[in-house]
């Protein structure tokens, strides 16, 4: 019975959570903790645990493009909703790793618009989603500082 109880506790708390790395704009003006710069995706969806993984220092948040990468830990259903929301781009998720299809890579290029070539290059070149995410973060770190 004790084993069954532990089994149920483990599954009820975490069984349907998932981790995703998501491109999102930041919102806010940074003037107070109530209006701090923060990811738009966590204002639209939740509850999620998140951490910024891009690492631009606060004064270096780029307005062009207004983007950074966050790690989200949410219920699977929430990640599924974000995955089909055109405002965001799920670069990789726990259940979707490895090399993306050319079609998925092209959708990411469309999402990045005029920045696509500089951010991730014109071709997939066999890169995994993790490598593409690294490339995105490195590029975002050196964008122009906020005015």
């Amino acid at each position: 019975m004790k084993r069954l109880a532990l089994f149920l506790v483990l599954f009820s708390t975490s069984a349907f959570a998932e981790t995703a790395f998501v491109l999102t704009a930041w919102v806010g003006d940074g003037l107070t903790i109530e209006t701090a710069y923060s990811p738009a995706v966590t204002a639209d969806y939740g509850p999620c645990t998140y951490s910024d993984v891009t690492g631009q220092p606060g004064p270096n948040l780029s307005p062009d493009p207004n983007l950074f990468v966050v790690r989200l830990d949410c219920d699977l259903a929430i990640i599924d909703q974000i995955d089909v929301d055109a405002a965001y781009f799920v670069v990789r998720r726990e259940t979707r790793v490895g090399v993306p299809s050319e079609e998925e890579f092209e959708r990411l290029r469309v999402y990045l618009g005029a920045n696509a070539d500089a951010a991730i290059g014109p071709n997939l070149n066999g890169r995994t989603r993790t490598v593409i995410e690294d490339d995105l973060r490195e590029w975002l770190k050196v964008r122009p500082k906020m005015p």
Partner: protein
Amino acid sequence: MTRFLKYAVLAAALLWSPAQAQEEVQVAAVIVAGSGGSIGAGGAHAGITTLLQDNFTDTNGTGLDAHTMDTGPGWTEHQGTWTTESNQASYSAGSADMASAAAGATQGTITADVTTDASGGAPGIAWRVTDNDNGWIFIVNDAADEIRIFEVNAGFTQRASAAFTVAGNTTFALRCVISGDTFTCDVDNDTASINHTSSVFNTIERHGLFANDATETYDNFLMTDAT
């Protein structure tokens, strides 16, 4: 492997493994579900050095910058009004203000008990503080019912958050482990936790308290060198 699969393997082992292996799996399960090692506000363990400590025992109305810490060189009130009241630190005027003390170290484990005011508010602990406009903070946030890490650096940038119910007039045990460029913060013995990695301000050795609303209070402040 997904978390789901990890737990599935663990659960399968629990249900089917022989007795000895089962005991080992149960220990592993406790580690998975448990709080991790903690240093309470009562003092440091053997081999761990206390860098800063304050239980705020003093006459009511004593300014924090005039108060003698239990361990540490003394507080600097960067902004706002900080005093001792009922043997706690009390913040009574201003918003988004910090007080800090020089620890002589950039990293360690910081713990404090923070109490929200009647309307909730956002009390917290601070690390790597140079002045009121530069440093890192970990707070409980009543308005959002979340715990949050902010970089205070030419404004406030929220770097991590997690859902956590925050009520007014309630005390919360905050803890942040600052290890190199990685910050791992939790509330009430790992009831909720968040983490973030950044090299910003990583040479700064001042750490302390953050307040956002009047009448937030603080007690049992401790920083050790444990990472």
